[in-house]
């Protein structure tokens, strides 16, 4: 992490199409702009298809230009799905960085048809630790169900991210931006989801 004077954060939010990783990355980007920083959110998504790998590169701070994070340049990988967390951690997680991941797996078709194996959570943890990274895993999918809507899983993860204290954005602003950027009917569930994620980490 850079010094507090010039807060800059390189964060990857990874997941599978349909999990809300893009929404989550926009919430962080909007919150950063509201606090006077610059923001870049580089997205990789293609077809409207569900189930594809999606990664958003979120860069907030002052002197940022490129939409993509450099190799080994992410202080945090926030993973809505463990395998996608590993995929991005291997490429982008900085030494000493944090992989904050949901424990609930979304199997690729390759695994379902028996062409590949899904790594265990222990294997993922071991791998990232070998790279000098820290891994924190939470069952965000269950917490989202607890919040009353399984689709708030992305916001549980945002709450957890805020709980680490590593975001140069105030929790108040984040919650406000969550409120303004989710469907009106789901505001309460999303705010509960945020709190549940936040408390799990704190």
């Amino acid at each position, binding site marked *: 992490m850079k010094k507090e004077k010039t807060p800059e954060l390189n964060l990857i939010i990874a997941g*599978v199409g349909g999990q809300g990783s893009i929404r989550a990355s*926009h919430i962080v*980007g*909007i919150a950063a*702009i509201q606090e006077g*920083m610059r*923001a*870049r*959110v*580089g*997205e*990789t*998504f*293609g*077809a*409207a*298809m*569900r*189930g*594809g790998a999606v990664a958003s590169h979120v860069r907030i701070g002052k*002197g*940022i*230009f*490129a*939409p*993509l994070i*450099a*190799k*080994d*340049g992410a202080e945090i990988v926030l993973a809505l799905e463990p*395998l*996608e967390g*590993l*995929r991005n951690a*291997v490429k982008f997680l900085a*030494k000493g960085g944090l992989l904050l991941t949901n424990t609930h797996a*979304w*199997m*690729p*078709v*390759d*695994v*379902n*048809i*028996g*062409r*590949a*194996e*899904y*790594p265990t959570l222990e*294997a*993922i943890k071991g*791998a990232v630790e*070998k*790279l*000098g990274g820290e891994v924190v895993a939470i069952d965000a999918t269950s917490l989202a169900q607890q919040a009353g809507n399984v689709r708030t899983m992305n916001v549980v993860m945002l709450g957890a991210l805020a709980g680490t204290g590593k975001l140069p954005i105030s929790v108040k602003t984040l919650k406000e931006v969550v409120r*303004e950027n*989710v*469907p*009106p009917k789901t505001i309460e569930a999303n705010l509960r989801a945020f709190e549940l994620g936040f408390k799990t980490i704190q």
Partner: protein
Amino acid sequence: MTEFADLIVEDAPGKRVLLMGNEAIARGAIEAGVGVATSYPGTPASEILETLALAAPKLGFHAEWSVNEKVAFEVAAGAAITGVRALTSMKNAGLNWVMDMFMTLVYGGVRGGFVIAVGDDPDAHYSSNEQDTRFAAFYGEIPCLEPADPQEAREMTRYAFELSERLELPVLVRSVTRICHASGDVEFGKIEKPERKPVFDRHWKLPWRWNVYGPPGPVEKHRWLHGQMPQIKKLVETIPWNKLELRGKPIFGIIASGLGASYAREAVKMLGLENKVAFLKLGTPTPLPEQLVGRMLKSVKSVLVVEEGEPLVELQVRGLAKDMNPDVKLLGKLTGSMPPVGEINTNIVAHALAKLVKRKLPADQPRELIKDEIKNLVTPRSSTLCAGCPHLGSYWALKLALRKVGGKVPIVNGDIGCYEQGGYGIVGKEYKLSFSTESVRYPIDSPYETLDTNYIMGGGVGLMQGQFQAGYKDGAIVGVAGDSTFFHACIPAVINAVYNKAKGLFLVMDNEWTAMTGHQPNPATGITATKEETKLLCVEDVAKACGVEFIQTVDPFDLKTTTAAIEEALKSDKFAIVVARHVCTLQAQRQKKFVGKRMIFDRDKCTGCKICVTFGCPGIIFKEGKAGLDPILCNGCGMCTEVCPTGAIRVEE
């Protein structure tokens, strides 16, 4: 929650918001008072018109999804001829469709500002090629503006209208995937409301201005076009996006265009070279600001050129260096300092810079070795069709029918759309090359290996006719296309098939939406870009009018009937069209029109034959020798009950 449609039309200069590059381009057009906006969907450019379609009813301008890019271009050009500001947007390959009009419209140009916004796709994330459309601007002798980030995308698009009117020429704004689909903080400008009553004047400033053959004819109009160049060249020396930073005694220089400049700035920062480099940031890769380039070339001994795409800037700089400083050492794609294909990034630029200043980038070798080990753990996630997708049914039926009556080696010609995933294969599978002199049949052992050929919009139905006319006899000849593709590019090819007596099966997979690019409406949907109801066009009606005699319509959820119809078509001695129609499942779910059935999987009845797995639905899983249904992904379409031979999957009564 502020609706995005309200935000994007807010006249709030100075307001800072997070916008995607495509939305920023749309905002630039809104601020310029665009009157007519047209497009055909294509990733990564689709959100430009999606955004404008949201704004159009609020501001009272026209926005449309045209049937294809060529028509879109002509509609926008027609508006610009009457003095109204117009924009047409498209993906890289979309520009290929417009080249005829593009290369001719510039002979005389336009009256109202005309902006051509193109989303290129270096690295072919969503495209069949990596073409660099900046060359089209060079070819057509018009200016190209290339933003470095979403903020510039907004400013440049807005300015492009003004520039277009000053030069009386179209202006191309070239964006790339990493700007189109990247979001950034964008500051709004003021929304202009130019009063533009459409006018027509046949001889406006030039005789027969809008009729290229009208006297004095094309050559004189080409001369007029050339006459505009000195003015363009003068303008680009002073526009704010071309900027030379020359301080102290730089040891080398960087000339970087568009997004390349953003990566180059990061790379300079990474290497701590901020005060040692002369930096020429370019916003107009063509024409170049020659004076600025000259000053750079005369100030340093070596220059690295950084750009996304082909070496357009580099080639021009090379030409200029010959006169301005032949001793300067130029590095870029032509010298192997930058990779010739794929997209660039901060690391690639940093690597080239480090070499230039003879510095080693810090590398953690042991960590790289660990990464190589870990890579085996990173299971691929292959692209699939969605759970419950009607195309799954169409492909299954096609596969069964071909097995029965498709002959030894059938050829299935693919096309562009969601259904092209039937030709992607599974990641990481290795293929053995063949040097056979005979036709070869390959087993389709994954559901995503059905398509034998696939190139461009409407390409398949043309290719199949060539195979027929060549006398191919080793198997059935098939073409597939979607509804939007059918209207976009297939109609002349269908007429051609009838006219020239070609035979074969053309399977149209009609899911009523342009789904792959994010569910835009098309003539098969019955609504317009701005959600107004309109006439719904039927593929069958059009095919009939084209003279096709064998036309059958089926519901691909009904696998038996679909298979039977395809079989009959394959046996027919005519050019046969089968329309497999079922609305896109995602779209049906969004509109709450889809009622999933409750499915029951009987593990005891499953013999582990994996036939359901080859159906290819991501809702079907296979674990410990038995199949099963993923409760989250399965949406209860019920197609798999027809696939399972042992009755292990059934619908709850």
